[in-house]
Structures are given as C-alpha cells and as structure tokens.
C-alpha cells in the first residue's frame, strides 16, 4: 500500500521537496539550539514555557479531527463520514507527531527524554500525557492502517478493530483532558487554575481539529479530485459550529468570573491580554484579533445559509482557526506566567529560532500527513470510492 506514496505528480513531488527543505533549514536552527541551549529562545526565568509548549497544546486539540468523525460514524452510524474518516485518523497521527516534536524541542536535555519512562512518576501529569499521547498515536495508526488495508483488499473491516475503535473515542477525550490537567492543577497560576480548563480544551479541540480537517480535505479535493462528500462536510461544519459556540461561551464564563468577582489575581492576566497592564501589553493586538475573528467566525458559521456556501464556510473556518490558534497556541500558555509569582510582568515574544524550529516541526507533520493521505486517497481511487 505504501508504494502509492511514491507515485505522484510533479506538484506532489515539488510539495514534498518543499517540506523537506523547510525541515532541513529548520534543523540547522535546531542544531544551533542544541549547542547553545534554550538561550536562543525568547523564554525567560519568568515565562519559562513559550511558543513550543503553546503549539503542543494547540496540536493536541487538532488531533481531535479523528474523534469527531469516528464517534458519529461508529456510535451513530453517520454513514456520510465513512469516506472521510480515514483522513481524520491520519491527520490525528500527524498532529500527535507534531505534539511530540514540540515537547522534544522544548526540553533542556532532550537526550535524557527516556528518563520519563525509566523513572515513571504517577503523580506527574506529564507522565500521563506521555501515555495518552503515545496511546492515541498508536490507536490511530493501527485503526486507520488496518481499515484501509481491508478496504484495499475489498474485505470487511477486521472485527478485532471494533473494540479498539470504541477505545479510541474515549482515548481522544483523555488526551485533551490530561493536557488540560497539565496546567489546570498548578497552584498560583491564575489563568490556568480553573475547573473549566478541561472543558475549554475539549470545546476548542472539537472545533479547531475538524475545521482544519475540512480545509485540508477541500485542498486535497482540488489536487486529487477525491471528494469527501458534500454531506460529510456539511455535518462536520455543523459540529464545528456548535463546538465553537461552546468554546466562546466558556471563554466568556472566564471573563465574567474574573471581572465580577473583582479578584485581582484573576483579572490581571485578562486585563494584560486585552488592555495591557502596568504599561505593558505586547499581546493586546493579538487578543483583539482573536476576539474579532472568533465573533466573526460565529456570525458566518451559525446561519446555515452562510455555512452551506462553500466560500463563506471556508472564510468562517479560517477565522475560527485563527481565533482558536491565538487563544491556545499563543495566549493561554504564556498567560499562565504573567504576572510572575511576584506580581511583576515579564513579556515574551518568540525569537526567529523558535519560529524556524517550529516550522521544521510543522513541515514534518505536513510531510507525514501528505504521505498518509496520498496512500489513503490512492487506495480509495483504486477501489473506486473516489
């Protein structure tokens, strides 16, 4: 089956070479980071996690692309998703690989990474996160690959996969929950210490993951003429819309709690985001773009008249991705460190190194995605599903 990845058009190969080039350039920056240490990043004593961990958090959410198809298909027999589900599962694989990449580049001593397994520490949430992410990666690889293989041989899906599929649904919830628990239980980090953090992670994941999936599937359709089906896109974009409504609602709950209670610790970071605090406000612009994009995306996505128009749908989804990315991939992690435990404000901005190294990981994820989708779509074409 894998040989299908080797048989592609010029555009396909140009794209692959482009991704490899980005990976190559990025890895030069990574090698420098390895030699010099994390001093090449914008992180500091006060803001000790930055762009890398934020991307990790966001891409855990993106991995939800799979479950939002698997669940309706296997639990509610939503047949429309049958063609598309493989794309979601393979995208989850790429997303989890991206997550792992960001964890590794963020480590000060990456060569000691195995210590997490050599000294298993059940009181650390990072230990569980490692388990759930690895598990989710394996589940999606095994399920997607075996399903595809069965389709290719025109045989019914192997029965032993069924329990794994159900497990993968529960497992998907666990990756968002545990990732939220990484930050949700830390005393003194006001932005993070909120009981709805895990719910926010789920809501944000369930809208941003499938939103990215729809866009990528439509791009793939342009290049390969593999049509995931109008109905599939329509239902999925409905799911995206409701998840986004929940996501925005939960964010507003945070605003209400902070400002109505008037407790300084809860207010400070939100004020810092939107208005700036003590004369510092490096993220104000981003915060308002997030707010604007988030609201506008809902204006476009909620009325089905707009949503069912493909161009408007695309615009709505892009805005949604922008808003959720700023929220989770930029503000949320950095915001946990502002103000610092002493109440002072140290600002953070990623450096060129962080951007280039992140580009390397993004490109790696895209490469995996491209290859897996190429194989999947190749098989679908062969069996006449495309």
């Amino acid at each position: 089956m894998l040989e299908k990845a080797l048989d592609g058009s010029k555009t396909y190969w140009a794209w692959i070479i482009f991704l490899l080039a980005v990976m190559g350039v990025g890895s030069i920056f990574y090698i420098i980071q390895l030699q010099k240490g994390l001093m090449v990043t914008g992180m500091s004593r006060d803001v000790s996690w930055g762009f890398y961990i934020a991307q990790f958090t966001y891409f855990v959410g993106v991995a939800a692309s799979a479950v939002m198809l698997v669940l309706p298909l296997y639990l509610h027999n939503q047949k429309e998703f049958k063609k598309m589900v493989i794309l979601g599962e393979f995208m989850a694989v790429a997303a989890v690989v991206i997550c792992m990449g960001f964890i590794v580049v963020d480590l000060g001593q990456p060569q000691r990474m195995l210590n997490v397994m050599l000294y298993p520490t059940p009181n650390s949430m990072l230990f569980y996160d490692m388990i759930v992410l690895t598990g989710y990666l394996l589940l999606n690889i095994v399920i997607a690959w075996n399903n595809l293989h069965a389709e290719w041989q025109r045989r019914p899906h192997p029965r032993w996969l069924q329990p794994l599929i159900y497990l993968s649904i529960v497992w998907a919830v666990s990756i968002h929950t545990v990732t939220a628990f990484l930050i949700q239980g830390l005393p003194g980090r006001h932005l993070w210490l909120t009981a709805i953090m895990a719910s926010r992670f789920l809501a944000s994941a369930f809208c941003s993951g499938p939103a990215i999936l729809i866009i990528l599937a439509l791009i793939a359709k342009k290049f390969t003429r593999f049509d995931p089906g109008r109905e599939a896109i329509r239902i999925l974009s409905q799911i995206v819309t409701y998840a986004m409504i929940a996501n925005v609602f939960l964010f507003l709950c945070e605003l209400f709690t902070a400002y109505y209670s008037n407790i300084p610790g809860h207010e400070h970071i939100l004020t810092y985001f939107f208005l700036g605090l003590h004369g510092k406000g490096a993220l104000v612009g981003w915060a308002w773009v997030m707010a604007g994009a988030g609201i506008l995306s809902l204006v476009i996505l909620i009325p089905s008249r707009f949503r069912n128009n493909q161009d408007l749908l695309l615009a709505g989804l892009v805005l949604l991705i922008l808003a959720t990315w700023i929220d989770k991939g930029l503000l949320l992690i950095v915001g946990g460190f502002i103000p610092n435990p002493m109440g002072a404000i140290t600002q953070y901005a990623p450096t060129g190194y962080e951007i280039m190294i992140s580009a390397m990981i993004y490109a790696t994820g895209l490469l995996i995605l491209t290859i897996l989708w190429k194989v999947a779509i190749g098989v679908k074409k062969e069996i006449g599903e495309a």
Partner: protein
Amino acid sequence: MGSNRRQFLRIAGVTTLLGLGGGITLSASSYQPEEHSAREKEARLHAGRWGMVIDTRKFQTEEDFHRVIEACHSIHNVPRDEAKAKQEIKWIWADHFEHVFPGKENPFLAERVEQNEFLLLCNHCKNPPCVRVCPTQATYKREDGIVQMDFHRCIGCRYCMAGCPFGSRSFNFCDPGPYVKDKNPDFPVRMRGVVEKCLFCYERLEEGKQPACVEASNGGLIFGDLDDPDSHIRQVLREKYTIRRKVDLGTEPSVFYIV
C-alpha cells in the same frame, strides 16, 4: 541521604547497563556527597524537617543582603551574566514587600516595610508542587524536608518552574560554566538545560555546618529543625510573630519571616 545515594547508584548502574548514561554516571559521582568516615557521619546535622526564620529587621542595608547572597552564590557556583537578566539564575535574592508577599500589601504600609527589601529563596515546602509535577523525580523531597534536585536526571522540561508558585527556580538557558567566577571545586557546576534552586546547603549539613547564608547573616537567619519543639528555631517561632509566603496555596512553606 544514605538510601537516596544507594538508590541513585542503583539507577546509575541500570542506566549504564542500558548504555544510556556512561558519561553521566562518571560526572555524577563528582557531586553526590561522598560516603563519610564514621567521625564525619557523627558531625552530620539531622532534622525531621529543616526550616528557616528570616528576621527581616536585621536586613537593613544593602550590605546585609549582599553578604548573604554572595555567601550562597559564590560557594554554589551560581553563574552571573548581567547581559541576560531575563534568563538569570538566582538561589537567594531580595525584592520589595509587595512582590514577596503579594496580596498582603496595603496602601498605608509602615514605612520601614514599604521601603525595605526582603529575602527570597526556595521555601522547601512541606507539600511541594514542584515535586508533585516533576516527571522524572529529579526534584524530590528528602526525609529531612529538603526539596532536593538531581541535576543529572533533570530533563529540563521546566514543569517544576510552572508548578512553583514562588518563582524559586531558575533554568540554565545556556552553559553556565563561562559565567561562574572563582569556581568552587567542591560543588558541581551545572550543565546547560537543567533547572536549579536553593538546596538548603545539604552539602554543608552533611559536614555539620550551617547553611552558608545563615553563617553570613549575623543572626538574621535562624536555621533548624521545625519538628523538634526544643530547637532554637521553634523557640524563636514561639516568641515572635511570623508570616509565610502565600500560605493559602497549601504548599506549607518552611521559611518564616519576622516582619
């Protein structure tokens, strides 16, 4: 510490067997306290839970602070790189009241409190969140309450920095070696990519000495066993009103302040 050391050696042995850490084990032996002779063992100071009282009235001039901070930073090879203030490393330092005790300030603070600075260091919390979150047990709590670090196990994930609500931890963003003036050969210089903090001078307690800062403090710092009702520190705590940082977070700091 004996059992810690045994465990460390066992683990080091396993990693070496696995071929993962040959170099690491070698260098590790250079900083783990050596087994001591019987006489030295007697000299070792013991406690059920080490703690400290900071008598802030005795820290008035810049010199009072400087002496104590220097005593710590110089023997512990704490690097100094003025150019990278945001990524600096500090084990013990001073800051204003509203930063040390956020939430306890008020608009009409006594002048002495408002203008003075206060020492900060790791609180060696009884319920340390840094230990709770560390995925490798590189940060762990010893039986005597010291929150200890194994610089050779730390993977540099900095989860403990997110977990500590007191800002007590620093990360080696670069190789600290070049920035250590007058290296103390008896204490390890850390490597790039690991976290560090005050360790309550475990290496000096081992030799029967008080922590370096305490020794240099002219009585401004009182160190002792919080579990022993007859200890000097408990006597001070009985007599003087003290406060601790952020008690509402439940970490149970072992550092007390007489204000």
